[in-house]
């Protein structure tokens, strides 16, 4: 299976190679930092004309994850849209695509720093969501337990016989999991950065995304 199993606050979770988190007991799929509409925002804000295919690509990957897991609940952990105007400006076809993904599922948009308020798209809009032993929110808070968050776009870099591989990653310790960014046009913050090193306990593990998700001690 293309997923790495781990336990957080008693919940059996799976870190998927795609960067999505799956909770089989709840049939729940969680993705973070989709940044839909990023290319549109870049054009509007700085006059860049990046290839306008990022939203379609992100949705296609989400579509595939949903088809495989058959999740009934979807939590988008914030920064789902690059900003509110980007959400409004989504082409009709992409809005329809989102509605199709939402059909027959419980869908929660958690607020992020890029998309703080409610959007005119279906689904519930929440600041955060407690569920069983876990709490889903955009930015991790020190001192919390059973926390699932995103925001930092963590990536990890490891050396293999003189070569380095850098990939988006999950960061996991006994208090929290931080998800990698799921969006196509997203960069990453190295796990060795101060912000992430301060949040994660010394035994933290990084799960590298890719064809097969791989755990390593979190590179610091």
């Amino acid at each position: 299976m293309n997923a790495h199993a781990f336990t957080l606050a008693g919940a059996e979770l799976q870190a998927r190679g795609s960067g999505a988190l799956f909770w089989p007991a709840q049939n729940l799929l969680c993705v973070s930092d989709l940044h839909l509409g990023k290319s549109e925002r870049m054009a509007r804000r700085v006059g860049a004309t990046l290839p306008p295919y990022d939203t379609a690509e992100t949705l296609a990957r989400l579509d595939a994850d949903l088809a495989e897991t058959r999740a009934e609940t979807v939590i988008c952990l914030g920064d789902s849209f690059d900003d509110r105007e980007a959400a409004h400006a989504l082409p009709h076809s992409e809005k329809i695509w989102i509605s199709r993904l939402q059909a027959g599922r419980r869908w929660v948009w958690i607020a992020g720093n890029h998309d703080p308020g409610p959007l005119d798209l279906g689904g519930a809009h929440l600041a955060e969501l407690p569920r069983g032993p876990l709490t889903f929110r955009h930015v991790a808070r020190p001192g919390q337990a059973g926390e699932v968050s995103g925001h930092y776009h963590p990536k990890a870099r490891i050396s293999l016989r003189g070569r380095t591989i850098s990939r988006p990653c999950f960061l996991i310790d006994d208090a929290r999991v931080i998800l990698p960014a799921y969006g196509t046009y997203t960069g990453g913050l190295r796990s060795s950065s101060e912000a992430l090193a301060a949040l994660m306990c010394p035994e933290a593990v990084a799960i590298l995304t890719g064809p097969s998700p791989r755990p390593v001690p979190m590179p610091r």
Partner: protein
Amino acid sequence: MHVLPAPIAKWFAARGWSPHPHQADMLARASDPATLLIAPTGGGKTLAGFLPTLAELAQAPHKGLHTLYISPLKALAADIKRNLLSPVEEMSLAVRIDDRSGDTTQTRKKAQRADPPHILLTTPESLALLLSYPDAPRIFQGLQRVIVDEIHALAESKRGDQLFLALSRLQALAPGLRRVGLSATVDDPAAIAALLARHPDPCTILAADPGPAPQIGMLETTEAPPWSGGGAAYAIPAVLDEVRRHRTTLIFHNTRAQAEIFFHNLWLANDEGLPVGIHHGSLSRESRERVEAAMVRGDLRAIVCTGSLDLGLDWGDVDLVIQVGAPKNVKRLVQRIGRANHRYNAPSKALLVPANRFEVVECHAALEAARAGDLDGAPRGPGPLDVLCQHILIRACAGPFTADSLFSEILTAGPYATLSREDFDACLDFAATGGYALRAYDRWQRLMLRDGQWQLRDPRAASRIRMNIGTIQDSELLKVRLRGRGKPLGEVEEGFAASLSPGDTFLIGGRVVRFDGLRELTVEVSPHAAKSPKIAVFSGTKFATSTQLCQRILAMLGQEDWPDLPDHTRDWLHLQRKVSRLPEPGRLLAESFPHDGREHLCLYGFAGRNAQQTLGLLLTKRMEETGLAPMGFVSTDYATLIWGLDPVHDAADLLDINALRDGLDGWLAGNAVMKRSFRAVATIAGLIERMSPGARKSGRQATFSSDILYDTLLKYDPDHLLMRVTRAEAMRGLVDFARIEELADRTRGRIDTLRLPRVTPLAAPLLLEAGRVPVSGSADERLLAEETARLMKQAGLDQNGKIPL
């Protein structure tokens, strides 16, 4: 000859000089629309370029800019300014001269635009920037002459393409403009003349007396060069002897890393403390300027350098050039040799130092070619479209334009003389809308068509476009500083910095330092006394050994014996012939052997670095498909070495030229070289912005790699303009498929695969080559699985990665 105006004639007479014949020729042809002067360094070339300007300014007053001088080096512009100011003062001419580059202060730049000097000395990039201002027509309206110095160097790069486009714009602003090019000796002056002149105008070609033939030879050493490596440490005592015997010696290296190692070893052996300096592009500006100043004062006996001293600066009293490492290209060798003895009638003196035994062969071949005056060169092909896209954006910054007028203007630029309207329209569409199959940016177009004229939708975009002007690709460099003292030593590539662990040692600026850590975007180091450091792998520019030189080498290897070669090299070639086989003209040798825990395949194609690189890419792709788990490869000019997890028993299976050709398209899609090319193309065309260190610092998460854009375009818009440009670029430069075809033609399936127990004498140098290209595929996943399991075990975590709670 034309009569010199009195102040200039008096100046010559007062010194007992008369103009050189080529200087007189330049005066006589001053009204020609385009003139190319071929002259050796030190032949009064620069004065020849400026004499007509001085004559015109002495004869009649001129309002505003008269002559624009363009040089590839900022330092050269500043240097020329100094050298020109004194004769102008001595002639009492009322001529204002100023220089302009990225280093010029804002105040001075503004003053130059408001009230231009008579003569402005600048670079192609600063000229492009000047042309992007709406007041460009006013600045350039009275321009009479433009002088392009070192045009042979510019003509080989996109900087030249940008310059020739700028000239087409200048000519439109100043129709009476005359063009002058100053060039070193080249194989095909007519090709450069065609770039310089307004197409299809003719161009006058003048050649100065080349002076006496240079004296070139091999450096005699007591010790033999090593089997492999590029340090040439063995030659240090002999090089020191030569330095002692001459006033000033330039010691050229092909790469910065090699220059660093050599300089380090030279210091260790320099018991009598001869003053020796180092100069290359990775050193901080302060360090370079210190060395340049010392050289001008004549304080240095030798300077270890790279291509950073290939051009321009006529400084110091250099009487010997030493080339360390095979020169790769006979033309460049001849130009480097010309750096010695700038006095006109003295022969240049040069010595070649092969860094390893293979290079002994290559140096001998190069020596023969240089003596025979057999210069190599390859045509560059039509002007690249990414540079054209940037030119269109620059044009838009200056004000509205019509597509028709811009198109006809561009056709007058030599490299773009054959541009099709279709390609031009595609570039314009890219600049305006991004040019995607999915028309997504109707609201946010960069350029809008209003009343038949193209213009910026948002004029504020101009400042972003201006910040991105230029075609030079800086790889992402990090500053290296001594911890605590904050003194910058130079720069290293980010990829190199990332491979360092605290405690690792490397060379920079001739000293060994220990890596302490990465602080923000600075590499912090402390001094270290180690003698054998980990080597800094700076990427110096690498050129492919020319076809002509490769053919000479193959012919040489085919000999029964090599009486002209030193014994050590002779013995080595005989040893290779004994344990394996020597490459022969008309056959392709493949060696397969295990080494250091991996399987290796070495192919001696002699097709030049770029084609060998392509061969590496194509073959690793086929090996990946057949499950041989290749991990990477490295190419030199004569061979490609591939390593992986499984051995290859018959290379012929992999080398079918038809399969290689068929695989080319699919292959071009997903590899590291393409992504590297795409990044350069996308930056030049203006799709992505050059990353300023500040931007990287503030928004690490917000920025993402250009590889993602490449992958997205490949999937959703594979025929996009920039993908086409990237492909064309790779085919022409990095791919060089024509030389693979030539290889196939020359060997016609005569492929000998030898399975050997260990690395062979001829393959050994490749193990130490820099520029290894990793192959992402099943080997990645296999290694990642091993390594992650090992790390988890070491950390005491269980195999499933479960955290012991």
